């Protein structure tokens, strides 16, 4: 059987058939055509051979030691994030408790409560500024630039 318009119509579905990506109806149609058309079934066999050869192509693994190092970085990065989280939450908790105890401690005079509050408030303000800058840096850092 010579190439027909049906052959052209089948066209890319040969690949879809090869990859098992066609609907049942489509793949039945291709399969019937392959049984009748020498030209298409020859092409199909060649594509199948190429597919087999490509799947066997050799590319080296990354050496285990290097792969471990790559994944190690993953672990240390996770620990780094965890350490930051621990520090920030520790500081926040101690601030809350500190403020609570300080303001409800009746043995401290009001004026020293106000002075200490100003000093500590300033310190915390500075800390938050630094924290904010760090967050901005981590947001604009190149690793986060994945457009997904």
């Amino acid at each position, binding site marked *: 059987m010579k190439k027909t318009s049906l052959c052209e119509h089948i066209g890319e579905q040969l690949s879809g058939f090869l990859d098992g990506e066609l609907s049942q109806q489509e793949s039945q149609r291709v399969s019937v055509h392959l049984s009748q058309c020498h030209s298409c079934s020859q092409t199909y066999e060649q594509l199948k051979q190429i597919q087999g050869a490509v799947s066997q192509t050799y590319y080296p693994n990354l050496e285990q030691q290097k792969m471990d190092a790559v994944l190690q970085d993953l672990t240390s990065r996770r620990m780094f994030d965890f350490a930051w989280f621990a520090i920030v939450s520790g500081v926040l908790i101690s601030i809350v408790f500190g403020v609570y105890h300080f303001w409800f401690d009746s043995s401290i005079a009001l004026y020293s409560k106000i002075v200490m509050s100003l000093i500590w408030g300033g310190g915390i303000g500075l800390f938050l500024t630094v924290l904010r800058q760090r967050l901005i840096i981590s947001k604009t850092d190149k690793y*986060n630039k994945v457009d997904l």
Partner: protein
Amino acid sequence: MQDTLAKVTQGAFKLALQILGQTSDAQDALQDSVSVAIAHRGAPNSSSADFKPWFFRVVRNKSIDKLREKKRHQTEEFDEQVPHVFETNLATDPEQAAQTTQLNQKIQAALAVLPEQQRELVLLKDYHQMSYLEIAEVLDIPKGTVMSGLHRARLALKTLLTETVGD
């Protein structure tokens, strides 16, 4: 099919190698991608089936960035000729050279001649065994164009291979 993380990362390394052609560059690209996987909040869990295409997409983008960066660097500094992608592999890795059969070399040479997207389609499907849907995700193209592009790529590959064989 359940892919372990180790299998996905080795596959991802090879994807980077297929784009970049050099082991050390591919390792760098993989390293950057692992960092992305850690930092990115929307990353699928590494044990889920969604992880592989997601991670491959990151690796592909990182590899392409790296390739561009290298090209820019080369044209700015000096016009040093880079040996061809796949030849570099063969020459520098004796283990690979030993395992590379003639057919293998022929396939790699033919793949190297294909336009970039065709090569990627063939490798993602036939080497990395991804589904059309996964390929569409990795390459960021509509799923409907995967089959036609892949078929065109395979026909081109067929022509290249039958030409060289003289069949």
